[in-house]
């Protein structure tokens, strides 16, 4: 009776310690897994049809959601941007505002978030279910490396799809802003495109946006295949692995975006 609070605290400490050790060990396993995927990556390009199939599932099937969301985001940006800009008589800069925010930030980030929930979760569920139904063990039994056959093509399919989807998102966003700003609000089309063209730099804005989307593609795809590969082989395990993929990918995208933005755009506002 006397020792019960003491054992309670001891138990809590023990749980905390075990949890910390487990998560650090999982991080180490994830790093080892990432290296192994990198080593097996040539297989994804030697058997290109496997990767093409994954580009189909990750990229082609995400086309509609990315295009529609991009269009709406562009239109909302145009509406809100116009509301503020016209107070200062700067509504001709609407194209600049929309293009810079899409190309630098929203294109890579929002399409990354959509990609994580649309394609990343599917990859995790697929690999997790393969593990639960012991297909991965069966492959190992037949001397087929599941990393080369299953994981690497899905990883590279995601990495290749992501920048293309981000570019599509930005393009559709600019198009949406054009439809809203020029066709509906009646901003001059010449100044819309001209100011945009003068302000958006290829090297600083567009290439940096593409670099961001490639980094997000690597992060999301790696998290997705790892969570699938690491899932407990039960129905519950697969479902929680899918949830973890979406949560971790989203956090990773936002955190990486901050870090990349600091490195890429720090010098621009200074002379």
């Amino acid at each position: 009776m006397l020792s019960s609070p003491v054992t309670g605290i001891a138990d809590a400490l023990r749980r905390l310690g075990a949890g910390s050790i487990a998560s650090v060990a999982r991080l180490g396993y994830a790093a080892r897994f990432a290296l192994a995927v990198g080593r097996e990556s040539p297989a994804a390009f030697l058997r290109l049809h496997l990767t093409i199939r994954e580009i189909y599932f990750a990229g082609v099937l995400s086309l509609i959601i990315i295009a529609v969301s991009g269009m709406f985001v562009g239109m909302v940006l145009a509406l809100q941007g116009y509301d503020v800009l016209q107070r200062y008589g700067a509504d001709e800069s609407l194209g600049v505002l929309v293009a810079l925010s899409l190309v630098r930030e929203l294109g890579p980030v929002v399409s990354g978030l959509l990609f994580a929930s649309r394609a990343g979760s599917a990859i995790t569920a697929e690999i997790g279910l393969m593990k639960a139904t012991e297909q991965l063990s069966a492959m190992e039994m037949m001397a087929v490396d599941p990393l080369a056959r299953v994981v690497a093509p899905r990883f590279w399919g995601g990495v290749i799809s992501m920048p293309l989807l981000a570019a599509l998102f930005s393009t559709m966003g600019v198009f949406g802003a054009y439809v809203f700003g020029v066709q509906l609000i009646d901003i001059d089309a010449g100044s819309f495109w001209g100011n945009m063209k003068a302000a958006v730099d290829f090297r600083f804005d567009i290439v940096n946006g593409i670099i961001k989307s490639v980094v997000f593609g690597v992060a999301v795809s790696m998290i997705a295949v790892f969570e699938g590969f690491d899932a407990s082989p039960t129905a519950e395990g697969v479902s929680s692995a899918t949830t973890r993929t979406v949560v971790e990918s989203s956090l990773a995208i936002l955190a990486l975006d901050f870090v990349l933005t600091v490195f890429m755009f720090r010098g621009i506002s200074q002379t």
Partner: protein
Amino acid sequence: MKSGRSALDLWVGIFVAIGIGCVLFLALKVGNLVTFGSTEGYRLEARFDNIGGLKVRAPAKAAGVVVGRVERIRFDPTTYQAIVTLKIDHAYPFTTDTIASIFTSGLLGEVYVGLEAGGDATMLPDGGKIAKTQSALVLEKLIGQFLFDKAATSGGK
């Protein structure tokens, strides 16, 4: 199996083509890849007493047309002037008596370098120096001057 895979290939091909098309659209229509790459062009140097709010990558315009960009801004501690390096497109040579001025488009607009070519027959070479410059108009200075003049004239009467 074979035909199914080629249909898949077709879709992936369309997807990749759309993606590359979007990158091209961003580069050509949204960005300024064609108008000004970062490599081509020649450099001109201009010294100003005051550059106002001029920033790196600000446009250089002649007759309102963008012909180049500000590449670098330095401060010369011996003459206490600002040295502005401009990168001008090869297609636009300027005469040696060109005047460089710093303007602002509108009250809140961007600051840019205006170039006005003169009548000389010789053209500025790569790395050439623009001799005649006109500094930025600093609004506070102007207002100060105006008030000072006003006080002087009314005091004199």
